[in-house]
């Protein structure tokens, strides 16, 4: 089963509005990451937040993490048409002693209308 689940599955907003996407996960984590995927392309890393952090900013992105609720949110402020993409959260999961794997949710598809 998936560790991360994004919500909503799809979101449509007008340019200039803010977009908020949520991610819930099931087990303890070391960090949580958000990625963006444009249609037909690979995923691009946006931001990483550690389990001991509650909020992090990067440009127009704001990520929050609530470990007690096992949830995170990604806020994109003043959205632009170029923000149209799918957004994924990924959580880490240790596998034996050999390293980490990363578990992705199904993603939120964001459409920003001009």
């Amino acid at each position: 089963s998936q560790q991360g689940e994004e919500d909503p599955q799809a979101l449509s907003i007008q340019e200039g509005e803010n977009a908020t996407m949520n991610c819930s996960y099931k087990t303890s984590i070391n960090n949580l990451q958000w990625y963006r995927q444009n249609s037909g392309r690979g995923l691009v890393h946006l931001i990483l937040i550690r389990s001991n952090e509650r909020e992090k900013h990067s440009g127009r992105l704001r990520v929050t993490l609530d470990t007690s609720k096992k949830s995170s949110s990604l806020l994109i402020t003043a959205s632009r048409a170029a923000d149209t993409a799918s957004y994924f959260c990924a959580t880490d999961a240790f596998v034996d002693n050999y390293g980490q794997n990363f578990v992705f949710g199904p993603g939120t598809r964001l459409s920003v209308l001009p």
Partner: protein
Amino acid sequence: DAGITQSPRHKVTETGTPVTLRCHQTENHRYMYWYRQDPGHGLRLIHYSYGVKDTDKGEVSDGYSVSRSKTEDFLLTLESATSSQTSVYFCAISGRENTIYFGEGSWLTVV
């Protein structure tokens, strides 16, 4: 880009044939991953590698094998392709602070 190249980028193959996808990195990272992406499922881990000749299974490994004879190359083989393996395959490496960098994907269609 994080120096990850996938080949081929697009391939159509027939059911029952073997297929090998190649991932090449120039970053000298230890960890490499193969994921598949399907609608409604997000990305699912097929196999991963934590070093040369060190590989292990992921969530959806049945029907796939991997090999890593050099740090820079991680090969994914579909031993006998089936229609259910039609998907987009992404190679990834784990970099600094466990940030994952992805290749551009390989679109595979099994007919």
